[in-house]
């Protein structure tokens, strides 16, 4: 009996803060004295960031050259419907020093690299250098898996097959003579793509790995001959190929072609006239697309984009305005309470 007196009944619920739902709790109260300063603070911070972004974006120089050639006056007009190898050149001038490093992009519009079936049309294992998949590429590449004679295509799939194949060269007109601006094709792809995701089979010479395979139908050259000057820029780890294989998120996109980092152009492109020579191969007529070349330098925030800076400034100002409105309402409310 004594024992029972001291013991709590086992049926009795535990009287703890947790079971009784009495855990110490913080209840955020959105009272004016908290909300108004908070809004002011957020507003100020946003405006600050916005201004910084805006200035950074404004300082970026941008040179766009559309070379689609749908206008009969355009130098590339002749190449538009030509089926043979065709070259055209455009001239442009840079008024001030184009600060370096300058990034050389090509751009496509209305090109849906983000199409689902298109994106799936590749064989990751093949691109990882697995020879088994050279012989027998994944069916995800269909219908770009085998050619008409049932020889496997490497690299297979629509994505690789449709690789962009215009080439560009840039020359600086110095005292009437064309001086070639050296374009640096190294390091334009993601480091991880070049070193991890894409691999060539460990077969030397590389060409042996491709025995019994065919190049993609649209390609002028097989994968192992993409860059004849650099052994390490061939096969699947060719930088242009890597850039192409990283699918753009939006139908209007640009992709890095080269960087201008050498010789006299380390600090940028000096003011003056330039000639862009285009080897025009890639057809854009079938999707109403446009092609362009973009020269741009970058800041800490990437390429030129005014949106983010403006958005930050607008949102910041809205916060400040709202806090002022609230202050007025609050003051009125306060007075009413005093009465």
């Amino acid at each position, binding site marked *: *009996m004594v024992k*029972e*007196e*001291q013991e709590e*009944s086992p*049926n*009795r*619920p*535990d009287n703890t803060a947790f*079971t*009784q*739902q009495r855990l*110490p*709790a*913080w*209840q955020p109260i*959105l*009272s004016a004295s908290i*909300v108004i300063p908070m809004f002011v603070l*957020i507003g100020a911070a946003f405006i600050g960031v916005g201004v910084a972004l805006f200035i950074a974006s404004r300082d970026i120089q941008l040179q766009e050259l559309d070379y689609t050639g749908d206008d009969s006056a355009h130098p590339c007009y002749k190449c538009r419907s030509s089926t043979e190898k065709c070259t055209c050149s455009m001239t442009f001038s840079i008024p001030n020093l184009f600060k370096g490093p300058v990034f050389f992009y090509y751009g496509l519009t209305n090109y*849906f*690299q*983000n*199409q*689902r*079936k*298109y*994106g799936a*049309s*590749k064989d*990751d294992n093949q691109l*990882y250098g697995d020879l088994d998949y050279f012989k027998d590429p994944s069916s995800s590449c*269909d*219908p770009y898996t085998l050619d008409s004679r049932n020889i496997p295509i490497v690299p297979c799939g*629509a994505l690789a097959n*449709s690789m962009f194949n215009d080439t560009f060269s840039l020359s600086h007109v110095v005292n009437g003579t064309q001086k070639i601006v050296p374009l640096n094709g190294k390091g334009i792809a993601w480091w991880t793509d070049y070193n*991890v*995701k894409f691999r060539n089979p460990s077969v030397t010479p590389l060409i042996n790995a491709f025995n019994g395979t065919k190049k993609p139908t649209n390609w002028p050259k097989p994968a192992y001959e993409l860059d004849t000057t650099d052994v390490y820029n061939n096969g699947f780890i060719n930088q242009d190929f890597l850039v192409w294989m*990283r*699918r*753009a*998120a*939006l*139908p*209007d*996109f*640009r992709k890095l072609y080269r960087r201008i980092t050498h010789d006299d152009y380390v600090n940028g492109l000096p003011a003056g006239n330039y000639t862009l020579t285009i080897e025009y191969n890639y057809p854009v*007529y*079938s*999707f*109403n697309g446009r092609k362009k070349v973009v020269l741009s330098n970058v800041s800490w*925030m990437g*390429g030129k*984009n005014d949106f*983010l800076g403006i*958005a*930050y400034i607008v*949102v910041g100002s809205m*916060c400040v305005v*709202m806090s002022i409105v609230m202050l007025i309402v609050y003051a009125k409310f306060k007075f009413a309470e005093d009465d």
Partner: protein
Amino acid sequence: MTWRSPLALVRDALQGQRARERELRSLVSNLLYEGLEKAKQPNRFFLSNAIKTTKYSLLLFLPMNLYEQFHRFANLYFVGIAILNFIPVVNAFQPEVALIPICVILLLTALKDGWEDFRRYQSDRKVNNTPCFIYSRYKQYVERRWKDVRVGDFVRVVSNEIVPADLLLLYSSNPNGVCHIETANLDGETNLKQRTVVSGLWAANLGFEPESFNSVVVCERPNNNLNHFKCFVEKPDKDKVGASIESLLLRGCTVRNTNHAVGFVVYAGHETKSMLNSNGSRYKRSKLERKLNADVFFCLLLLFTMCLIGAFGHYLWLESLPGVPSFLVPDSNGHLDVPSLESFYMFITMIILLQILIPISLYVSVELVKVGQIFFITNDIDLYDEETDSRIQCRALNITEDLGQIEYIFSDKTGTLTENKMVFRRCSVMGTEYPHKENAIRLDVMDEPESEEEVIFNQHQQLPRTRWSLESEGISPADTQQHGRRRKSKVAANAHSDVAFSSPLETEVIPDQKLLQQISRAESSGGRRDGNRNFDPHLDFFLALAICNTVVVSMENAHRQRVTGAFFQRNKWNRTRSEDPVIDSAKTENEADTNELQTCSLHPPSQNGSTIAEAEELCYEAESPDEAALVYAARAYGFILLARTPDSVTVRLPSGEDLVFEVLDTLTFDSNRKRMSVLVRHPVTKDYVLYTKGADYSIMELLGTPYAENVSGIEKNIAADTQYHLDCYAKDGLRTLCITKKVVSESTYQSWLGERKRAQAAMECREELIMRTAVQLETNLTLLGATGIEDRLQENVPDSIVALREAGIHVWVLTGDKPETAVNIGYACRLLEEEDLVINMSCKNKVTCTSNLDCTLEEVRRYGDDLRNIGTTQNISLVIDGNTLDIAMSPDLQQRFIELTKHCRSVLCCRVTPLQKSAVVKLVRDKLKVMTLAVGDGANDVNMIQAADIGIGISGQEGMQAVMASDFAISRFKHLKKLILVHGHWCYTRLANMIIYFFYKNVAYVNLLFWYQFFCGFTATTMFDYWQMIFFNLFFTSTPPIMFGIFDKDVSVEVLQGVPELYRTGQRKGEYNFLTFWISILDAFYQSLVCFFIPYLAYQDSDVDLFTFGMPLNTAALFAILLHLAIEIKSWTLVHWAIMLGSVALYFVVTLAYTAGCVTCNPPSNPYWILQSQMADPIFYLIVTLCTVVALLPRYSPPLCICRQLDRMDPSTRDQWIKEWRGFRGGAPAKRYELPDPPSPTLETPVDFFPDFLPDSDFMGDDLSLNVIAESRQRAVHT
């Protein structure tokens, strides 16, 4: 194992089937066939005693569980979509990956089901292996397991042992052939019940010999009725002996006070009555869930619209292409489909892509949340009752949120509002009233300390010891010192007081001095003169009180004990050692235990010491509290019920003489007759005397002719006086009973006996025939007197009712009492208020009822429109009796009746039958489309409890039938207040908000994908990796809403209880309605637009790639979705912080690990190093911040929630504030909760929560032509 042909097996199975289906079963003893193979056993077709309550078997678990799960539509939907993914032309993801979410959901549910089933398996095994004793031809009784018991066996049960199967009682160690059982395991009734041996089977001189049992037991097919059993035993000489439930020991009962008993197994295992009665937990679909399903359907529509847009967009996109660009991939044959076919495929692909618009984990989450909510409800210490040591039980697991939407409460009165502890208050004998003033004072004294629990306990404890007298009103200081100790022992003490209705409050009655004198005068004046046929009516009155009942007498020292584990063990040991009566061990056990609650009586002065001691040992075990109260009252006057056997009653008279009455028959109570009678043979006069007691209206019309005649005889006066007293009692809120007597002549008795026997042996409509014979005998009664028994209100009942009404809940009380009693209790529990306009509807026929109803309705409308009443009050209450209710509920009047009740603040229905109770509930529920709750404690409330949306059972004095039928079981009415106002509100708001949030979350996330379709030619591309999409819903954002649904507290307990008006939010409009649902969907659209287009504009014209673009979208969505919840969360505890921060951390850790580890693991998407590279880019952070802020900015337009500020205040200012709030009602703040329909009268009512604020308005206008009960209640409202 002998080989048997399959044909024989099939034939056997069919035979068995037929044997089980037959209306009547013939069973013979197994002993003659002992040791024979199974095929020769006569009872082999009947189920064995092994039970199996598991749903699944080990082998078939998977298919069966899957089959069960696919009954849920959502699961089918998701599996269907996953299967669609296997069709190459329409697939959106890799098929295997698409199966993951649904598999996880199915697996989780299967694990839960499996675990539950395993628990059931374990408990089955434990039960099946419980030992018991079966008679064997060779070794007498051998110990076997429960599962070995078969139909036709002889099983011996000893005291305190649980009966293993339904046994036909053939032998009892009790010389009278009685076996006492306790059915607490079955229906919770703790009083002992008597079961009697089937008589006439054994020759008197021979002992009980199972081997010689060669009769055939013929019994009915198993059914679940615990109170009826039809059976006869056919002896070899074709003589039939009938047996009924009186001879059946039910499985699960405990044998008490009987050394041992032997029974013949008639039903075993799943065919036993208790097993047929147990039917798992109830499944109800809550209102919220019904609405939820409707909204899931809306989401489906939305999904289809979006898919149609996608398909149409794809068509336009394809059409707009001038040629065949290199990014358009033909099928494997190099062939492109026409745009219309492509867009049809795209439609299906879009469904797959956007499927998570229908929240896949919603159903599982809702179940989890409900489990959590139920955990907190059952663990609430405020809903724990110390007295009975019981918590609230949640029997229905999925309607917690319905508690927050109750609009109508239907309550029983007796045992629900009142204690159901009957206290004898006063009586009227032969037309003379005996007010029992001292007794009233005693009760008042016991009333006072009720405010303080401690003191009342002290009183209870103290009373028996001090032999309560009028002088000891004050509590001596010495007592108070002992409070601490007593308080501690309170729980223990109560756990031991198994005897029903035997608290000191009920057992002690102080006799009225005048009546005592009257009795002693009667005694001395030759009441005992031999052969005097006119036994003094006063003596007769008390004899009737003592005899006319079914109270079982047990001695205190033989008092039973609860079977505890250790005790059970000891019994077994005893048994195996010897055949000693086990009762000895029970005795020693009891002696060791000091009896905490000794029942004792105040003895009349004429008694001597020895009888006191003896009488004090007596324990009365009654089925109804009224009976106990009357027996205790009789005892107080010296008429002590000493013993009761099936055919005799022993009563000690005040003179000390013991009279043994031969009981010829007991006409048991039923709700049609509303009375019971006992037919005895008087030992002195040798008369056949019928004592009847019952409800006044059922008795008064049966009185003998002298009462009916139009002459002014003395009997007529007695009847009139008694009726007057009865009315007075009723007005005081007492329960009334009339006591009558009838002397039956020898010849009448003999002829009646024949009929009675025929009725009892009848197999068909036995009950009806028996009732008819009872009615036959109960005529021409002689009125002896009437008793008034008080049933006290439970503590805090008025407070709870006031709070519930202020919460906008209409409270109806349905009672079987007389209108006067009911109205009185209505005032006491503040269902009716002094200033109320009380409409009393009582009419005899339909015509008057119709006109009455019409004109009342008109008055009520006019009253409501009356300018004088606008802004003051509209407290109309309706009192209606059962007869009128029947008429008012007839199909052509019910509309008007409902209209009238809508105007009434409270409704009191008197003299209603159980069936009417449920009819009222159904009517209100169906006509007004409101959420109803019924609360009751007795078997008569079961219908009502089952008819309402939520049934609440009060586990009180009347057994467990109401609890068994209920969804929630509480122990006190006051718990209802917190259960509804606090837990109901919380459960509802939590779940409603969580569901809305779930919809929002999925729509917001899925829409990101949808917006992207506009930029990828509607080709169902995802910019997220698919694994991340799965993780997003499965891990990153799944726990916070569940936590929100379990833990969030929008308003604190104190405020919810202090301002019941807050409850109104949930009632009709609530948090979860059409508007809030669509607002949240719109908000989701807005947020997804923000989260998509800000990154879109920021990355426009750049070289961003697909998954790099998706990563800030995903991250921004995560933050927006989690912070959205953070705004919704009203109070942050440690759990909240941990889960919210944990979710964010989990997102980054898992995503970083995944993007670092997966190089070619998930083609075609290839998220390698995406997050790492993004996290190195400041733009990523800027975009995520901007998205989150802009998405949530509209949510921060500062809502000044008064109640949340209220919580911040310290308690004193908060109370002050609540007071002010209440003072302001009708002012601006209260308007927020105003409901246009139905008009809520309490809203503008001056407040009565704080008595100081009570207005002295006495507006009950005389000009009102209504039938107003203008009762001015003088009695102070106690408790």
